[in-house]
């Protein structure tokens, strides 16, 4: 698949904090972090995007990150609080979202969504939804 990227990017504005969708346009999180690789004699390159609770917690304070991580390990639903998306997986950047060439359901970003679906939602009878639209 051909990537659709603008010719020039302003990383903070065009990438960071943007809504992330998978190849079926399912919303799977936001660009919580962005990691640059520093190279000797060559310009820094975007290595990967990061998503997850640990990334957000780190922005508040490194100590908050360790609390959030301890909590995550205790609950045990998510294997990682830091989901890394390699730059190669970025498919399209438009003003309102970033599209990845992945399937949301197969990523750690959907760990909670799946756990809640299987352990809570599945036990409540659903109504007319899903048939609408």
């Amino acid at each position, binding site marked *: 698949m051909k990537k659709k990227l603008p010719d020039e990017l302003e990383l903070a504005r065009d990438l960071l904090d943007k809504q992330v969708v998978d190849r079926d346009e*399912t919303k799977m999180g936001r660009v919580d972090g962005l990691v640059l690789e520093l190279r000797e004699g060559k310009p820094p390159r975007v290595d990967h995007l990061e998503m997850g609770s640990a990334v957000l917690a780190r*922005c*508040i304070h490194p100590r908050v990150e360790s609390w959030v991580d301890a909590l995550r390990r205790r609950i045990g639903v998510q294997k990682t609080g830091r989901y890394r998306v390699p730059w190669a997986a970025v498919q399209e950047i438009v003003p*309102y979202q970033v599209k990845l060439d992945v399937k949301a359901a197969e990523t750690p970003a959907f760990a909670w969504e799946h756990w*809640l679906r299987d352990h*809570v939602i599945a036990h409540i009878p659903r109504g007319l*939804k*899903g048939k609408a639209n």
Partner: protein
Amino acid sequence: MSMKKAATLALGILTSVGGFFDVGAIATSAQAGAIFRYQLLWALALGTILVVFLVEMSGRFAAVTRQALPDAIRQQFGFTSWLVPFVVLTLIHFLTLGAEIGGICFALHLLTGLPVSLWALPVAALVWLFLWRSTFSAIENSTSLLGLITLAFVVAAWRYHPPMGQVLAGMLPTLPHHEPARYGYIAVGLLGAIISPYLFYFYSSGAVEDEWDESYVAVNRGVAVIGMGFGSIISVAAIVVAAMVLAPRGIQVDDYHQAALMLTQVFPFWGFALFAVSMGIACVGAAVELSLAMAYTSAQTFGWNWGENLDPREDARFCLTYTGAILAAALLILFGVDPLKLTLFSMAINALVLPFVALPFLLLMNDRKLLGKHANGWISNAITILTLVVAIVLAVVSIPLMFLGG
């Protein structure tokens, strides 16, 4: 205009029934009319003008950028800047949701005679079931249709032939003849009840749910004026009726029971039930709006999948957010928090956080890179800056007033 676009009016009326004429507007309008007759109508008029513009802006923003406000705020200002307002707003939305659920419980208490707190859990179940089972357009259409019953206030006001001269004079701000602290407190409450932050988060998310695009910009303008105008007319009518019925008898509204007498004179047989049903429906609309606003805001802040039209299996976190919010807010009423006190308190803090809502709004609406030719013109900017100034004055004034007038 296509049918689909004409039907968008439902979003406006729903936003208005729930967001404008809600438990807070009922309480503060009844108090304003009962104590100061028509003298506080200016606060309502000012609030209406501001809210029409702000609602129009949030709709225009969503139509042009396909983004709802919380989504855009997180993207534009970053997670750390948004974190504190997000937490504070969630807390306020929670308290306001408690007040609205209290309003529904009170309406049912009027109709059945059973205690208010007894209704807390059944009401929570009812509101939740409504959200869980129906689609966004079903919620929109049924609530806005049922919301027309609040027009009973307008009919009542019209039948009383209020002194038009005094009503018009009330549209201009004047100094109070008595109880200045109370006057200020009610004015703040009225504005806080009208310009609630959740209104904009809900309305813009609703526009995204209804898949608006740039062609909706003109329709949106009409929806904002008609929808908010609807809520405003009903609130004016509530003030007029309170001024005609309660004020001459010296009845102040210190309790919702006193407000419940408002329509009993003009509609001897139906008045009591009409008041209860109007209050109940307005509060259902608001409770639906608030719980969705909370779910929209959280989902957009963290990027979860969201939408009232999705099967709950596809947006588990979104659905469970409103589920948890409704349940927790109902506990406030179950444990006997006074609905009127909770209402007045949450209206005052709604006014308090308004500056933090209006400022990012002003910045977003002027971003040409996002909005292109649909960015704000000078009139909209002047109104937003006026809102910001009013909001800051309110915030500064409302703290001492909370102790003096509350």
